[in-house]
Every structure is written in C-alpha cells, then in structure tokens.
C-alpha cells in the first residue's frame, strides 16, 4: 500500500464512520512514520470534533417566528419581504389603488411616447423635403467636375443638368433672335459646336473640357448676352464653394 492509498483509505474510514481501523492501514502506519503522523492528527481532529458536537445550545424560536409569520400574513405574504427591517418598511405596502395608478401611469407614458414619435417622424420628413430643395446650393463644384463621379450622378448633378438644359434652350433662342436682328456684315456664323458646348451631352463634368474652344465672334449684343449668362452660371458654382 502506498501513502496515497493509505490516505484515501483513511478518509474512507472516516466517511463510513467505522469504529476500527482496518488491519492493512495499521500495518502501513507501523512502518511509515509520515502516515502515522497523519493518522494521529486525524485522530486528534476527531476527538476535538466530538467535543465540538456535544455543545448544542438550546433555542426557542417559535414565538418570534409565528409573530413574524402573522405580521407577513397581515400585510399580505410576499417572498420579497423577509427580514424584520423589511417587514417594518410600510412604504413597501401596496394599496388596492396602486395597481390602477400604475396602469394609468403606463397608459399616459405610452401616449406621450406615441406623440413624441409621431412628431419626430413628421419633422424628419419635413427636413428631408427641405434638404432635397437645398441640395443645389450645397453642391461642391469639384465634386461635379470630378470624372470619377460621372458614372454615378448625384441629386445635385441632376439639378445642375436641368439648369444647364434650360440655359441651353434660352441661349439657343437668344442666338436665333440675335441672328435675325444683327447685320450680316458684322457677324460671323457661330461654330457648330457652340450649342453642343452648352450641355447637349447632359453631363456637367464636360464643362471644363469644353471651355477651351473659344466662342465664334458674334455681334456685341449676342456676345454680351452669352457672357452674362456664362457669368451667372459660374457664379452659382463659385458661390457654392
């Protein structure tokens, strides 16, 4: 028998509350001083336990327990009320009206929450409408001039396209009218790509490329009108920066 086996058997001996140590354990401790010392300490422990167990002070709890039990029943039994301090806490009592008060409070809170939610949702749609109308003002010109954005035009791009489309029509009408009024001697015919320049492609990112070919010489009235219109168009973009 090893020392580990001895200790396990000794524990088992105490677990089963046996009265006499088995012979094999006695044989082991006769030759193993370490295990003998362990057995002696365990025996000492059990002498002390016997002394400790013999002391059981008397107690009378019935009166106190029944008083507390009656107190609980008087207030309505609740598992949450257990200690005397909690029992004496009258603020924890619930009156019959407490349930109705709680229900009304909940309904009021729900109504307020629904009202706030409705108001917030209204404000959100209002802001959305306003925002969409303000988008052209907030356009950054470099964004529209960036070729990488050409494949995915934004709302601002579409607004600017519409604006340029209208301007192109106005410019064409103005050019025809001026052409009919001015003298043929002072006028050179406009180049064929003049109207193309004014957004016939419908894309704003070609503006910078189209600025390089100069306008054909026209009459002073027509040139001033075109310059004024161009100025107004680019002023819009400049102001947005």
């Amino acid at each position, binding site marked *: 028998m090893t020392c580990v086996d001895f200790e396990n058997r000794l*524990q088992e001996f105490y677990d089963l509350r046996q009265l006499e140590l088995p012979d094999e354990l006695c044989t082991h401790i006769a030759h193993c001083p370490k295990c003998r010392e362990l057995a002696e*300490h365990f025996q000492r422990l059990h002498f002390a336990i016997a002394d400790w167990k013999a002391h059981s002070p008397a107690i009378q709890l019935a009166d106190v327990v029944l008083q507390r039990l009656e107190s609980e029943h008087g207030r309505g039994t609740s598992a949450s009320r257990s200690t005397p301090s909690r029992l004496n806490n009258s603020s924890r009592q619930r009156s019959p009206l407490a349930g109705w008060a709680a229900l009304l409070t909940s309904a009021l809170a729900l109504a307020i929450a629904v009202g706030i939610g409705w108001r917030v949702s209204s404000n959100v749609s209002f802001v959305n409408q306003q925002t969409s109308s303000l988008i052209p003002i907030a356009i950054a010109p470099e964004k529209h001039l960036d070729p990488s954005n050409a494949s995915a035009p934004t709302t601002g791009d579409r607004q600017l396209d519409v604006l340029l489309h209208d301007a192109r029509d106005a410019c064409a009408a103005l050019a025809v009218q001026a052409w009919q009024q001015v003298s043929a001697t002072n006028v050179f015919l406009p180049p064929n790509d003049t109207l193309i320049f004014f957004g016939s492609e419908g894309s704003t990112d070609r503006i910078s490329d189209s600025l390089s070919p100069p306008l054909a010489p026209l009459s002073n009235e027509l040139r001033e009108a075109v310059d004024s219109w161009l100025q107004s168009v680019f002023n819009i973009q400049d102001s947005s920066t």
Partner: protein
Amino acid sequence: MDVSEFELVQGCLAGDVACQRLFVERFEGMVFGLCLKMLSRRHDAEDVAQEVFLRAFRSIHRWDGERPLRPWLLTIAANRCRTHLDGLGRRPMPIDLQADWLPEERRGDSRDDAEEIQRAIATLRPEYQQCFVLFYQQELSVEEVAEVLDCPEGTVKTWLHRARKEMAEYLRKRGLDPQQPLNDHFHDPKPEPD
C-alpha cells in the same frame, strides 16, 4: 403531541397556528444547531434560523410528501447559511471569533477543542463548511449530504476530505498536537500467519 410530518404540513398549509408552532418546535434545535455551527455567532444564527422557518412556511406547498421533512429543511438552512457566509465574505473577517455559542465558563479558553474546531471551520470555504457541519454536526451520511447540497457524492467526499485535511493542519499549526498515542481504533496490526 404525536403528529406525523404529513399531518403537520397539512396543518401548516391550512394556517393552523398550533401546527406551525409544533413545526418550529420540532425542528428549531436542528436548524439553529446547523446555523450556529456554520455561522459561529449566536445572533446571526438566530436571525438566519428564523429566516429558514419563514421561507419554509412560504414554500411548504412545494414539499414532496413522500420525502422526509428533515433534509428538505436542512437544504433551506444550508442555503441560507451559505448566502449569509457569502455576504460576510465581502467584509473583513473578524480577527477573533466570539465564541458566544460556548458556555460562559468555557469562553476565552483558547485551548478548548470545541472552540478550536469552530475557529477552524470559519477558515474553510463555505461549501466545505456546509459539508463538514452536515456530516459531523447533523450526522448525515455522505449520500444524504449530497442530496441536501444537490451535488454528486464524489464531490461531497472531496469536500469532506479537504475539510478534514485543512482542519487537521489548522489544529497542528495551533499547537494541538496529538496528546495521546493512537488508540481505540488505531490498534497494533495482528501478526501475520506464518
């Protein structure tokens, strides 16, 4: 009054004060003894023992009539003591336990075996304390302790072994060495037959 446990419980469920009183009187020694041995302080033990009975009355409708009352009540008591000890674990441990559970003539005797055991119990982990007190003070078997604590028997044995070893070591450090040679059950081995 010779009333069976089942009749006692039925009376308590019906709100019979006499049955409730009898219930407390029948088990107060057991419950208070367990609480006192686990908690060391009489005042704490009284509070917890009262709480045990109040909880027992609240949940007595859940008692299984085919099983004895004692382990059911001990389970409540052990759990309440464990909860109390867990609460104490968050506060500083008293340097010197007041042995107010001992008779006055024996208080203050640091060499008293019973007091040393109580001190040693206070040094154990709560699960070891539960196990030790249920086994030695309530004299439950390992199987019954496992049932009360709702854990495997092997776990109870392990806790019990560790508790014994730690307590024996505590007594050795406190200078309570064996004062007499192994006797009684520690006898000389029988001579082996040739």
